C-alpha cells in the first residue's frame, strides 16, 4: 500500500524532511488507520460497562416479555401495542442509542482520550464518519438483536410482528444513534442533553396532540410500524386516538427519517470538523 496522505503542503518550497525520516519512509496507509479506528471504536464500546448495563436492560425486557407471553389470549396487536411500542420503541431503542451513540465521541471527549484521535493523521471528517459507522453498527446490532430476541420470546405473536417492526426499528436506531452522536459533538455534557431530549421531546412531546410530536424519532418509527402493521390492526384506534396521533404514511415517514439521518450526519460531521475541542487538556 502506498502513502496516500494526500494533503498539499502550504508552500511549494523544497520539503525539508531529513533523509531517512521514518515518518516518510514507512508508507503509512490511511485505509489501514481508518480500519483500525473502526475496530478500536467497536472494541472499546463493546467491552465496556455500558454493554453490561445494556445486557441487563435487555435481559430484564426479555423477562417482561416472558411474563407477558403467559397472559391469557396474547395476540400480535396486543404484543405490538403493550410490549414492543412502550418497551422497545419508546424506551429500549433510544436508551441503547444513548448508551453507545453518545459515548462514541462524547465518552472520549469526557475522558479526554479524544486528543489521541485528533493527533492521528486521519482527517477529522473521516474520524467522524468512522465513529458514526461504528456507533451505528453497535446501536443497530444491539437494537435489532434485542428486537429479534424479544419477538422470539413473544411466541407466535412476536414472530408475526417481527417483519412489521424490523425496517422501522433499523431506521429508528440509526436515527437515534446519529442524533446522539451529534449531540455528543455539540455539547460537553452530550449524554445529559441526549437524555433530556429523549425525556422531553420523545416521551412528553411524543404523546402530545398536534404536530409537535413530529420532532421525535419515535413518531416516524411508529408511523412506519402502524403502516406496515395494518394487517394486524396495529395503530391508533378510534377518532380521538387517530386525531391525536396524526399519522403520516409509512413511506413518507421512512423518507423523512432517512433524510433526517443524512442531515444529522452532515451536521455532526461539519461540527466535528470545524470544532476546537478546548476542554481536552
Amino acid at each position, binding site marked *: 500500500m502506498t502513502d496516500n496522505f494526500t494533503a498539499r503542503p502550504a508552500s511549494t*518550497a523544497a520539503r525539508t524532511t531529513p533523509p531517512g525520516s521514518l515518518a516518510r519512509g514507512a508508507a503509512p496507509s490511511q485505509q489501514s488507520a481508518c480500519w483500525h*479506528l473502526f475496530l478500536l471504536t467497536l472494541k472499546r464500546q463493546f*467491552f465496556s460497562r455500558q454493554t453490561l448495563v445494556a445486557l441487563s436492560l435487555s435481559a430484564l425486557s426479555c423477562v417482561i416479555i416472558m411474563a407477558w407471553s403467559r397472559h391469557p389470549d396474547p395476540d400480535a396487536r396486543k404484543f405490538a401495542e403493550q410490549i414492543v411500542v412502550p418497551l422497545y420503541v419508546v424506551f429500549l431503542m433510544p436508551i441503547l442509542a444513548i448508551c453507545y451513540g453518545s459515548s462514541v465521541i462524547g465518552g472520549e471527549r469526557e475522558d479526554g482520550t479524544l*486528543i489521541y484521535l485528533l493527533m492521528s*493523521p486521519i482527517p477529522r471528517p473521516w474520524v467522524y464518519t468512522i465513529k458514526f459507522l461504528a456507533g451505528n453498527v453497535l446501536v443497530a446490532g444491539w437494537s435489532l438483536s434485542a428486537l429479534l430476541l424479544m419477538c422470539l420470546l413473544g411466541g407466535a405473536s412476536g414472530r408475526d410482528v417481527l417483519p412489521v417492526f424490523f425496517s422501522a426499528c433499523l431506521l429508528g436506531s440509526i436515527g437515534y444513534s446519529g442524533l446522539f452522536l451529534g449531540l455528543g459533538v455539540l455539547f460537553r455534557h452530550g449524554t445529559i442533553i441526549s437524555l433530556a431530549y429523549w425525556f422531553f421531546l420523545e416521551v412528553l412531546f411524543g404523546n402530545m396532540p398536534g404536530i409537535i410530536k413530529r420532532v421525535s424519532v419515535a413518531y416516524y418509527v411508529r408511523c412506519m410500524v402502524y403502516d406496515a402493521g395494518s394487517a394486524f390492526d396495529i395503530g391508533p384506534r378510534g377518532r380521538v386516538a387517530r386525531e391525536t396521533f396524526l399519522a403520516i404514511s409509512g413511506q413518507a415517514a421512512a423518507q423523512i427519517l432517512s433524510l433526517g439521518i443524512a442531515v444529522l450526519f452532515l451536521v455532526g460531521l461539519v461540527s466535528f470538523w470545524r470544532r476546537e475541542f478546548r476542554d*481536552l487538556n
Partner: protein
Amino acid sequence: MTTTTVKPSPIARFQHVTKWYGAVIGVNEVSVDLVPGITGLLGPNGAGKTTFIKLLTGQLKPSLGTVLVRDYPAHSAAAKRFIGFCPDTDVLYEEMSGRNFVLTMALLHGLDRHTARERTEAALAEVDMLDRADRTLRGCSKGMRQRIKLAQSLVHHPDLLIVDEPLNGVDPVGRRELMDFFHRFCERGKAVLVSSHILEEMDKLAEQVIFMGNGRVLAQGTLAEIREMLAEQPQRVRIRSPQARELATHLIAWAHVQGVEFAHDDELHLKILQPEAFFRQFSELIVTHWFELTSVETTDVSAEAIFDYVIRAAGLGI
C-alpha cells in the same frame, strides 16, 4: 579563515500568529521557528504556553497568521505525521496494557501490523518500559504512565516531539534517563519542544528557550543569548577573596557596578550591568594588582534568574 554557521531549517513555523478566545487573547503576534534540537517553552501561568502547544498540535486554528509543520498547516491531517504529542493530562485508554496502547497508536498512524509491532517494541525500549508494558494502564504508576505517553508519541517516528510537562511524576533517575533520551532524539536531526515549569531542569535540558508572557514571546534563543540580550538588566556576581575590602574600593568606582555588599569579610556581592565589559575590566584589574581570588561566580545565570529578568523586563512583575 571565515566560518559560517548554517542555521538548520525549521521543522515548524509560527508566522504572525494570533489566537483569540472571544475577547481574551491567547497568543499575540507570535513568530517563532522551531529547529532541530531541544527547545524549552517557559512562562508563568496564563502566559499562553498551552495555546502555543494547542496551535502547534493543530488542536486550535490561529485567528490570524499561520502555523506550519513541515510546510503543512498544523491542523491538517498531513502535519500530524510529523508531530508526536505527549499531553500533560493523565489520560490513557485505561483498560489497555501499555504495550497495546502504544500499538494502537501505531496502528492509528496507518502502519501495518508488523511494522507497528516493531515500532512499539522500539518505542517501549526507548522509554525503558519494555519489560513492564504488559501491565494494565489503570494499575500503572504515574511515572510509568508518563513513559507510556511518551512511547506513544514516538511510535510513528515524528520529526517534532512536543512534550508538555514531561518530568512530572518521574523519579530523579527517570528524569535523567528522559533527558538523555531527548538529547539522543535530537541527535537524529529532530526537534523536541518541552514545556515545563521546572526551570532548573530546563537549564540542563534545553538548547534554546522560548519565554512567553501575556501571550507574547518575550525572548527566544539560547540562555546565553538571552542573557546577553538582557545585558542592561542587573546581574549578581559573588567574589570570594582575602582582599575583599581592597577589591571593593576599586570596583565601587566603576560605571557598570551598581552596588557592592559585604556578605562576610572575604565575600563580596556585586550588582553589575553589561557583564561582558565588566568581566573584561575585572580580569585586567586582577592581573594588574595581583589580587588573590578564591572564587568568582555569577549567581543568577540560571534560567530561573533569566526568567525572572524577562518577566520583569516585560513589565509583568514578579
